[in-house]
């Protein structure tokens, strides 16, 4: 048993740090660290920089341009990126659709899509959930029926997807669609790649309770999708989707980002004064910080244990990922809650303009309230983390069924 990183892992960490300090644009990291509103180009620009370095897809195998890093290296990379204030690499292309294309797509699809994902050209969004099908995804009803025509066979897609994260920027959407209503629900689902510019697609914003536009509805009305965009076999989409869910688990715990936010919480608690002393000297509040830190320490080791087991190929990442999802999301939520609480009176103002990167602050308000103006919004926004990606209730069902056999 040894909880220290090896000399090679330490050296790797130094290499990542050196790269980040040289190449991460300051205007981007300022936004991330200050909790400012991110724009499409912040994500894209960073992806392009990573790609130039050969680090565009840390979890991909080398034959597709990935780093081939082992899970511990990937973990170190994510931790250092979070600490430095790098934008999160959005999972939809890199971690969700790409592994499916690699495993089940044909050579033409691999050549067409993968290079444009890794170099930041194409922005992907995930089209799984529907208004009537959230936790019970297999009940989905967006239909695709196959038609033959002179200009090539294609599917005609009708229906509605919802909750599509950052779909307003997307060039492509990967969808689960119903191609058959015979037999089990799961047996009639196909996995389609759809160009967002196709006629008949309408994207409508959904505003979240923090007032921000992060998710969308996507409507399909007689949308023609070439059959060449079908992944694998028709009616086998559920298998591919399940593969995807069990595939990519590093990063799900969000340990790196939570460590950074814990640090921010401590800073806030030093700046806020409570009855003439720094809030951090208030035992009751300090204990709350300590408690969340204990949770995070435990999760960090749990995460490394899962990752190492995966690395040694003892077994595939399995239902224990549910533990990481549940604890990871709870810790993120606790951190946003305590950050909000630390602010005292200044948790109340709603200043969406304060999310602009170039906001100069307000001379009326105490200087530290400027940076804090977004924190209550984050608390409200982060209620999502126990809902999306398989709600925490569904994760507990997975643990009780798959691990415990109940």
């Amino acid at each position, binding site marked *: 048993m040894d909880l220290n990183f090896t000399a090679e892992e330490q050296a790797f960490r130094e290499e990542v740090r050196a790269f980040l300090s040289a190449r991460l644009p300051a205007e981007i990291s300022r936004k991330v660290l200050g909790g400012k509103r991110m724009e499409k180009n912040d994500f894209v620009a960073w992806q392009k920089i990573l790609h130039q370095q050969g680090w565009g897809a840390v979890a991909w195998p080398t034959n597709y341009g990935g780093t081939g890093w082992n899970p511990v290296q990937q973990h170190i990379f994510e931790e250092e990126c979070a600490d430095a204030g790098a934008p999160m690499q959005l999972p939809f292309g890199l971690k969700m659709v790409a592994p499916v294309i690699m495993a089940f797509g044909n050579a033409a699809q691999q050549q067409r899509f993968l290079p444009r994902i890794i170099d930041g050209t194409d922005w992907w969004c995930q089209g799984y*959930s529907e208004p*009537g*099908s*959230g*936790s*019970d995804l297999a*009940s989905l009803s967006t239909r695709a029926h196959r038609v033959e025509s002179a200009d090539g066979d294609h599917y005609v897609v009708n229906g509605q997807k*919802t*909750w599509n994260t950052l779909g307003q920027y997307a060039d492509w959407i990967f969808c689960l669609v119903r191609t058959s209503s015979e037999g089990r629900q799961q047996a009639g689902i196909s996995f389609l790649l759809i160009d967002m510019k196709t006629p008949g697609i309408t994207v409508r914003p*959904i*505003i*979240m*309770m923090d*007032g921000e536009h992060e*998710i969308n509805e996507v409507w399909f009305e007689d949308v023609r999708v070439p059959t060449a965009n079908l992944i694998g076999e028709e009616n086998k989409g559920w298998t591919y989707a399940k593969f995807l869910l069990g595939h990519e688990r590093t990063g799900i715990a969000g340990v790196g980002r939570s460590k950074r936010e814990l640090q921010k919480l401590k800073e806030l608690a030093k700046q*806020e*004064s*409570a*009855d*003439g002393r720094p*809030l951090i000297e*208030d035992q*009751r*509040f300090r204990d*709350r910080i300590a408690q969340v830190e204990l949770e995070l320490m435990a999760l960090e080791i749990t995460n490394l244990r899962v990752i190492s087991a995966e690395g040694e190929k003892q077994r595939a990442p399995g239902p224990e990922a549910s533990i990481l999802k549940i604890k990871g999301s709870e810790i993120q939520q606790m951190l946003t809650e305590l950050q*909000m*609480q630390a602010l*005292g*009176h*200044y*948790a*109340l*103002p*709603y*200043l969406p303009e304060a999310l602009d990167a170039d906001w100069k602050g*307000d001379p*009326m*308000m*105490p200087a530290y*309230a400027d940076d804090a103006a977004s924190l*209550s*919004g984050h*608390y*409200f*926004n982060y*209620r*999502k983390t*126990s*809902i*999306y990606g398989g*709600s*925490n*209730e569904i994760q*507990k*069902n997975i643990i009780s069924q798959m691990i415990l056999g109940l």
Partner: protein
Amino acid sequence: MNFNYTEEQLALQDTLRRFIAKDYAFEHRRALANSADGFDRAAWKTFADFGILALPFPEDFGGLNGNAVDTMLVMEMLGRGLALEPYVSSVVLCGGMIRDAGSQAQKEALLPAIAGGEMMLALAHHEAGGRYALDRVATTAAANGNGWQLDGAKAVVLGAPSADKFLVSARDGQGLSLFLVDAGAPGLTLRGYPTQDGARAADIKMAGVQVGPDALVGAAGDALASIERGIDYANAALCAEAVGIMSALNEITLEYLKTRKQFGQPIGKFQALQHRMADMVIATEQARSMATLAAVRADSADAAARSRAVAAAKAYVTQSARLVGQQAVQLHGGMGVVDELNVGHYFKRLTMIGLTFGDADYHLGKFSDTLLAA
């Protein structure tokens, strides 16, 4: 012991319930939150007609002589309606402080005007850096031939943008004192903004603001006790508002559990969610009990007993509200986090109530400190 409301109280409750349902529907409320004032002046007039703006004042000053239990009942209904009107800051808090500490002349000038809906007040007391402690005031009042000159800054003054006058706390030679200041007084600047729950507040700066000899409320140096009493009264009211919101959220969530289907059945069939919903209902009933205790004690002449009960209630209700608010969102899945549905708005208001005039930790600490004295 008697936990029943009187006939009059039930009638008032009914009136407010119907008003909220008919004239204060959620979409109307959304439009109000986005309007310049951030609340409904017509509703304020209606509140005057209903008598709720006069509720806590003596009959001699146009009031209805109501007690804190009457206020509780009103607040519970305003909570259900997510009312944006500055009822707590103007009527409960400032009106209550004028009633308890004001001179005869001040009461005559202000209480009937508040009761009639012609005047709004806001308490400018808390300051940045003081957090929730009530005696941390750096604003100064320098006596001069014409009264006092006020200098300082106040943080997140609730209801400030619509206030005609402020009750400003400041330190003079005697200690902490309270002054009435016109919103338009030269030297007073105001930076207004919406709050997370759609209401309005402002940061206020005072530079050489001159007030006359009649501006002093209560005896010089005596303000702390009045402020403590006023804030206790307001916190008791906020507890009732939270209970109103929690009841509404429970009804909405229960309905959702019965109607939202996944896996071929209403999600309310899943025992995990049944237990969660049961926890929410338990928390709300317990919170209702504490809010009732706070209301009954809020009128007590015994300041220590009053403060202790209100601190206990505010700590407890805030903890319950956190559970109910978070779980109402969770059980709605994606629908819980959207702006379109009222659930998120109830949750935001509950959260802000918990952070107003002391958070749960502050009140738990206040209560906990009384154990040393016992």
